[in-house]
């Protein structure tokens, strides 16, 4: 979901009000993306098929998520999954697990000053990305694309977040950037 808005203050009639309040502009983006679906993978060849990216058994469907998204916390409950017996196919559905959601607010505040009539303008502007400086967990649950080129494709490694045999399974170890502020100066005619 994306919300964008650009709002400008009107031209105020009074001299003081005009000097203080006219020409301001607010532009914002609010973005919310629900967690991307991905598959938990065994990380080992349980099927004995030689094919990578095998899904395990789901043993406890009600306790897949721990409800925690803090840095270093385990977002997924490892005991809800179990590597299936050798030579069988796991019963976990493809892309049946979703990662933590993303949200962010970016805001730009700017003010225009007309010089020499309306034709020339100077704009002073400040942009803030992740305005609230909120903590937004990041994760990588899908396999990176295989390297192109000639020859047989090389299967990339399963990311630790999705690999059941990893000690970092379901652990949140990265986050989206903190608040960044950018200033700008612009002259237009």
């Amino acid at each position, binding site marked *: 979901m994306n919300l964008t808005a650009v709002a400008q203050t009107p031209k105020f009639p009074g001299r003081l009000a005009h000097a203080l309040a006219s020409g301001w502009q607010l532009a914002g983006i609010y973005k919310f993306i629900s967690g991307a679906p991905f598959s938990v993978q065994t990380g080992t060849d349980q099927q004995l098929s030689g094919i990578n990216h095998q899904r395990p058994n789901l043993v406890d469907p009600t306790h897949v998520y721990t409800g925690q998204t803090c840095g270093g916390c385990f977002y997924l409950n490892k005991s809800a999954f179990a590597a299936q017996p050798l030579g069988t196919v796991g019963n976990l559905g493809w892309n049946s697990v979703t990662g933590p959601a993303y949200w962010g607010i970016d805001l730009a505040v700017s003010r225009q000053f007309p010089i020499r009539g309306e034709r020339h303008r100077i704009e002073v502007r400040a*942009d803030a990305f992740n305005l609230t400086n909120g903590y937004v967990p990041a994760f990588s649950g899908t*396999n990176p694309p295989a390297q192109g080129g000639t020859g047989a*494709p090389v299967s990339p490694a399963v990311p630790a977040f999705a690999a059941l045999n990893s000690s970092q399974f379901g652990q949140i170890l990265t986050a989206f950037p903190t608040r*960044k502020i*950018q*200033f700008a*100066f612009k*002259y237009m005619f």
Partner: protein
Amino acid sequence: MKIKGCVILLSYLMSAAAWAQSTAQIHGSVLDPAGAAVPDAEVNATQLETGVSRSISSTADGGFVLTNLPLGPYQVQVSKEGFATSLNKGIVLQVGSNPALTITLQVGATSQQVNVEANVLLVETRSLAVGEVVQTQRVVDLPLNGRNVTDLIGLAGASVQTGSAQTRWFSNQPIISIGGSPAVGGAGGTSLLGTEYSLDGANHLNFLSGGVMPIAFPDAVQEFRTETSGQTAERGAATSVSIVTRSGTNTFHGSLFEFIRNSAFGSAREVFSPATVTTPYKRNQFGGTLGGPIKRDKLFFFGGYQGSRVRQTVPRTTVIPTAAMMAGDWSTFASAACNGGTAKTLRTANGTINNLSNAAGNFSTSGQIAPS
């Protein structure tokens, strides 16, 4: 033979120039007050910013199509002997738009003029594609980290940035998945090139990565259109992004800008691990644009430059030998306690096994490490 080659090249260049920026059209029909078709009426569309105009006659069924029009505000004038001239204003062409215009002529002298505020339906009736246009004002006004226009593609529904591509020549080009299409693929039989990018009507794909090639900075982009499903036959992929750069007009316009980002502003510490101080980052982006007429109503120019300068410190993890190792004593390094219970066997350069567990293991005394 040489001359012929030159002519072919010249005609090719001219056709390319004619094709540039031509991504919209107007179609419609001309009717008389009774609703009957008016053939052979002269339909003239004029771009108001550049004054460039195009004309066509309506066909036997009163229909007309003006193809390959540059973007921008238009007025359409329709005249026919025996009818008052109809002047339709307020038509704005965006990327890929194809508005339908139904013009009803009033009976009167041709010198008479009827002004109509053209009520063009912005609902696309000719194309099945589901898409969204992001216009100049939004491109320039919305906050953009790094002034990368492609960040705004994600504002269209059903698109999400899934990462960034490192290719040989262009670093950090975003990978954007639109409408669930594989933005960059190759693994497991997924198709490459899931999204078709075009710049000013021409293909703008990086065929090495399947992603988009660099796009001009926001001040040089007129607008772009993201289509997320139901593509028309002219597209080569399931989803598409059409970008149109700005062009000059009959009046001179330009800008100068400087954008600065500095780690001194914003947040002092990382949210993820509050003990970590934000690493230094300084970015300057500067440049300008200028556009105007070369020959009024005929020929225009537009140019822009943006320079980016980034200075940053990247934290790295590295291994530094201890004082004992520098002195040649590697026994701690090779010990069982440091290697998960199994002592490491170190070999000297001439291949003999130097078991450090029962000796001082001083490499420098055996001449293997030259003391500095």
